[in-house]
């Protein structure tokens, strides 16, 4: 590798050989070994810029963003829809049960609690009403 090419590659890819094209690294390392001072001089300028670039770190994603992305997946939406349907079903069932209870309560309140004596006495509204008739006879 010529000094010019070495310098050119440092200008393009920076001071770290691991960022250089794979097929140039071996030749670049050989050049650095053969001419350490020249190589170091060339790389020093590139390294200063690399160090400045390294100072620009980006904070990782927060939980809110991560959650929003996961919630946008088809699997999450399907699961959420299933859950929604389950709750809707449970809601309808609860509504039905409440209606039935209200109906039962209304019937209980509206129906007479006692039976007039002339309709068979205490047995008239029970399974023993026939028995009551037999006893009377």
């Amino acid at each position: 590798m010529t000094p010019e090419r070495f310098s050119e590659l440092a200008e393009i890819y920076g001071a770290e050989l691991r960022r250089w094209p794979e097929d140039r690294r071996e030749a670049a390392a050989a050049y650095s070994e053969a001419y350490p001072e020249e190589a170091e001089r060339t790389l020093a300028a590139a390294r200063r810029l690399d160090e400045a670039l390294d100072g620009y770190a980006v904070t990782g994603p927060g939980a809110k963003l991560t959650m929003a992305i996961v919630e946008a997946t088809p699997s999450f939406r399907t699961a959420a829809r299933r859950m929604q349907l389950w709750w809707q079903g449970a809601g309808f069932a609860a509504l039905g049960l409440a209606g039935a209870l209200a109906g039962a309560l209304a019937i209980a309140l509206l129906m007479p609690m006692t039976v007039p004596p002339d309709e068979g006495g205490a047995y008239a509204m029970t399974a023993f009403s026939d028995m009551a008739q037999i006893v009377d006879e």
Partner: protein
Amino acid sequence: MGVRAAGTKTENGAEKPLKSRETDEALLARIARNDGAAVREMVGRKLPRILAVAVRILGDRVEAEDIAQETFIRIWRQAPRWESGRARFDTWLYGVALNLCRDRLRRRREVYTAEPPETVDPGPPPDRGLEDGDTIRTVEAALAMLPERQREALVLQYYEELSNTEAAAAMGVSIEALESLLARGRRNLRAFLENTDAHADTRD
């Protein structure tokens, strides 16, 4: 990550563990089958990278988060259609994120400004990032001053450590064009930062 989606359950109800370092393609196949564990793994692997690319290209965290969300929507849509061996997933992914960033920058230009200059103005940089000497702000300002393609090339090659072939493919340019963008980008950055240092020295 602390976020759970519907996952794949085994017979005893336990979530199916991910194989150690599955390929992206294998994960995509599982995502296509609505595998929640694969979704979480993909988000864990790619979100920090995509977010960092968008932040550095756009210089705006909120917009970058929008881009990250939109990129992942594209992944979820693409998963059932992904053809193994056709393209490298990362190349496709970076390409999607770059295109979304370009759209965003185009809209910004349409709304706020005319075309940015093709070369960096070596004059005094804006005060932002100079008064406090904050390295992040200084480099952020320097990157923001670069023409769009030079910035993209630097972000992919330097920060993302993509090979020249991968970076060129993601940007849709030749390797020669990529190298030219990188060389000009680094030259412009150095000029900007040296100017910033000189400016800061005179202020001190």
